[in-house]
């Protein structure tokens, strides 16, 4: 699994800027979870472990950990595709509360 939550690399001057795009997940400092107003929650008692939520996550913020889908709430934008596509309907979208 990729190492996430990289620190934002700050460049103070134009000379410090790399000539190539700094790759390998350098955009992961952008925690897109703040965009979300509904959050997916996985009910493991109903989960079939089919991996369809992982397959259709556009972030991809669903990881497979020990054969279970685990949602990374730091990045999940709350689009709800996982809940819509889940064949067992074990993912429910819950309203986010602060």
């Amino acid at each position: 699994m990729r190492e996430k939550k990289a620190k934002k690399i700050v460049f103070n001057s134009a000379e410090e800027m790399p000539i190539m795009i700094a790759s390998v997940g350098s955009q992961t400092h952008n925690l897109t979870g703040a965009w979300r107003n509904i959050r997916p929650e996985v009910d493991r008692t109903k989960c079939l472990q089919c991996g369809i939520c992982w397959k259709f996550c556009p972030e991809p913020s669903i990881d497979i950990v020990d054969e279970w889908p685990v949602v990374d709430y730091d990045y999940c934008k709350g689009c709800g595709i996982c809940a819509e596509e889940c064949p067992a309907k074990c993912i429910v979208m819950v309203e986010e509360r602060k």
Partner: protein
Amino acid sequence: MKKEKKMTLTLPAEELMACGHLACQGCGATLAMRYMLKALGQKTALCIPACCWAVIDGPYPYSSLDVPIYHCAFETAASTATGVKAGLEMTGDSETAVVAWAGDGGTFDIGLQALSGAAERNEDIIYVCYDNEAYMNTGIQRSSATPYGAWTTTTPVKHFKTRPKKDIVAIMAAHRIPYIATASISHPEDFVKKMRKAKDIKGTRFFHVYAPCPTGWKSRPEDTVKLARMAVQNAYFPLYEIEDGDKVTLNLKLKDKKPVNDYIRIQGRFRHLTEAQVASIQAEVDARWERLLKNCAA
């Protein structure tokens, strides 16, 4: 808790697209990119013209992809990829797959002559057009990929688009390039299989990928995959491949073709259409499907 069950993933587990990108919620184009990188692997170089993905990727010098990216001008995706491939050949690297990754505006309208030139020369590149049926990045303007009846900001409800979508696959087939395929984000296994097949072919390979856009289509973000699947099942966007310009193979045979009405009605951009107009879309889709079946048989 439950009986032991081994999880089988139908796609490669390797993830070359990182979180933190700037796509809208429920974006179809990100799924297309994710599946393509899963199929091609790390040895890939991307040329991205102005399109949604130029923004999604992140501002310079950050990137959410683990492959090299070349941001090029709007009309030059195919010619930039040609140059990158030639450069790699000079350094002795014939393994890296060079992909031009353009939206429908950069393929159907602005990038068409560069694409046509590259296809005519049969350059060794993969050209992927992810089709969200308008210029979504700049604010939902009409493109020649916009289908009949759709609302966009430049074709408002009173003057909606009355011309059908351009048949880009037929245009590319007329160039007699080795491989052309259509793919949909709702059928990732099929997409990955075809992309792997294309990787081993030499010459220009063209992919037309259907990528719904909740923002521009005025649909719910959770319906993205459902919309793509419906479009495949009602033959609005059939899945097929064309080899050497004439050998057409249908990848998904439809036993009972669903009506387009359900697909049309859950999108806000088609809300103004009357029953008669939807019937005319159905007739057009049926005619296109019959033509495709005839081409497959021939």
